[in-house]
């Protein structure tokens, strides 16, 4: 009995490996009808001008969002993204590009036939998700602050207690030990960063509106966060921090005098730290989204070959996707924690005080 089951499995696996390439071949041959995994995955990961929820037959169900663009020659334009009819129409000389270089972005069609990218500050899916998350964030913590002000001594309950555990965790395990005595100045920034990332990560793994936007997996978001940390690290840095970067005490003089090798390396370090922060959060969150989407895409890839194989693969894909989502639950917390922790560590490094031995030396 069990032997037969194993044999059946082997057959199915064999079939799978034979059919995968043909499925891709089919998808390439007839892009209109066949399922395009790349488009599916990147369509979910990419920022968008409308918030696509689902398709009901031919009809696309999505939340329209405002487009705000400034043409270099014609000035400002504000209209709803429905005007593009899901990228099919051209509106006022603007269209949503299908080219590889600017895929999914609004392009202005100039009279000479060329296309340029207008200055675009549209409320996109990510911006809208950002606004929702910020409203939730403010609502949670302002209401919490109100309760704390009303009765500071009484112990919190329910959701407030859970939030307090997180606040205390970040405060006592990250901020205080990493920064040291001047931690109070950085507390608001680090707490905001942690909860901002955490909430956006949480919203990211909720598949339906208001979740599902790939906010923290977008490099523009992590770029701004990394720049903020860069500012917090370097603006309030101590003199000793700059002295250690440019004078590099304790290193032979020949490494810094004719060619300032060590100072250059140290200076590079200032820049690589925030870049590492930016890439780490972006890549982790993007990968998490991608894996889940790949498992989902597998169902449709095999489904386009045969509905039965699609259903069979679907069971395992869903199981794997659930496992990945459980892992993601861990990852969203860890990434928020790591970003906050590293920011705190970098800030702590910028708060160095002169050492006593060196003070004697000079």
């Amino acid at each position, binding site marked *: 009995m069990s032997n037969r089951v194993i044999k059946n499995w082997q057959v199915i696996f064999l079939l799978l490996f034979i059919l995968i390439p043909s499925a891709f071949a089919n998808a390439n041959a007839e892009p209109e009808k066949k399922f395009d995994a790349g488009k599916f995955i990147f369509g979910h990961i990419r920022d968008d001008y409308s918030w696509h929820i689902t398709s009901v037959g031919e009809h696309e169900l999505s939340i329209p969002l405002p487009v705000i663009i400034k043409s270099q020659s014609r000035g400002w334009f504000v209209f709803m993204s429905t005007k593009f009819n899901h990228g099919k129409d051209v509106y006022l000389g603007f269209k949503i590009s299908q080219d590889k270089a600017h895929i999914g972005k609004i392009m202005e069609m100039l009279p000479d036939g060329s296309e340029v990218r207008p200055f675009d500050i549209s409320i996109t899916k990510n911006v809208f998700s950002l*606004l929702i998350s910020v409203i939730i*964030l403010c609502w949670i913590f*302002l209401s919490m602050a109100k309760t*704390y*002000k009303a009765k500071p001594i009484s112990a919190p309950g329910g959701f407030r207690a859970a939030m307090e555990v997180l606040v205390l965790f970040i405060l006592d395990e990250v901020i205080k030990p990493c920064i040291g005595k001047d931690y109070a100045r950085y507390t608001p*920034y680090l*707490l905001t960063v942690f909860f901002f990332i955490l909430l956006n990560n949480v919203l990211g793994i909720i598949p339906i509106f208001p979740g599902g936007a790939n906010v923290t997996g*977008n490099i523009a*978001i992590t770029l*701004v966060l990394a720049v903020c940390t860069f500012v917090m690290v370097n603006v309030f840095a101590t003199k000793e921090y700059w002295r250690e970067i440019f004078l590099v005490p304790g290193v032979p003089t020949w490494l810094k005098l004719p060619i300032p090798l060590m100072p250059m390396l140290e200076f590079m370090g200032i820049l690589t730290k925030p870049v590492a922060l930016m890439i780490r959060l972006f890549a982790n969150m993007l990968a998490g989204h991608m894996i889940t989407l790949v498992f989902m895409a597998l169902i449709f890839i095999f489904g386009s070959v045969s509905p039965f194989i699609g259903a069979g693969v679907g069971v395992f894909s869903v199981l794997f996707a659930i496992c990945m989502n459980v892992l993601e639950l861990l990852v969203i917390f860890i990434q928020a924690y790591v970003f906050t922790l590293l920011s705190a560590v970098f800030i702590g490094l910028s708060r160095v005080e002169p050492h006593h031995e060196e003070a004697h030396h000079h």
Partner: protein
Amino acid sequence: MELFNPETGLIIWMLIVFLSVLFVLGKYAWPAITGAIAKREQYIANAIRVADEANEKLERIKDERNEILGKAREEQNNILKEVQALKEQLIEEAKTKAKIEAEKMIEDARQSINAEKEQALKEVKNQVARLSVDIAGRVLRKNLEGDEAQLELVNKIFDEVKILNN
């Protein structure tokens, strides 16, 4: 690849949104929350300290009480001892007084007995003298015939009286 190309519009929105949420939470939420948590921590620390102090005080009071009790007990013992001593002394005194009194009484009694005895002896002597004189008179009246015999008798009586008077 477009995924690695940060969009200007999104950067601008992110800056606006993040900085405003940082401002709002930094001004209205975090100070209140961390302040309240710190306040509560301080309150709890204070409460524990006060409880410790109260316990210490209680311990001290217990010690003091024990000390006072000990002292009181000692005092009591002392007083009891003193009372005992006083009692014994009083009894001793009373005994000596009684003895002296008794001796005095005995002495008085002896003296008065002596006096009575003397008186009685005197009286007996007088009686005897009178009786002797009487007897002598009677004897004399009978025997006063010869002079020589009379003289001898008178002398004899005188001697006897002398002995008696001594």
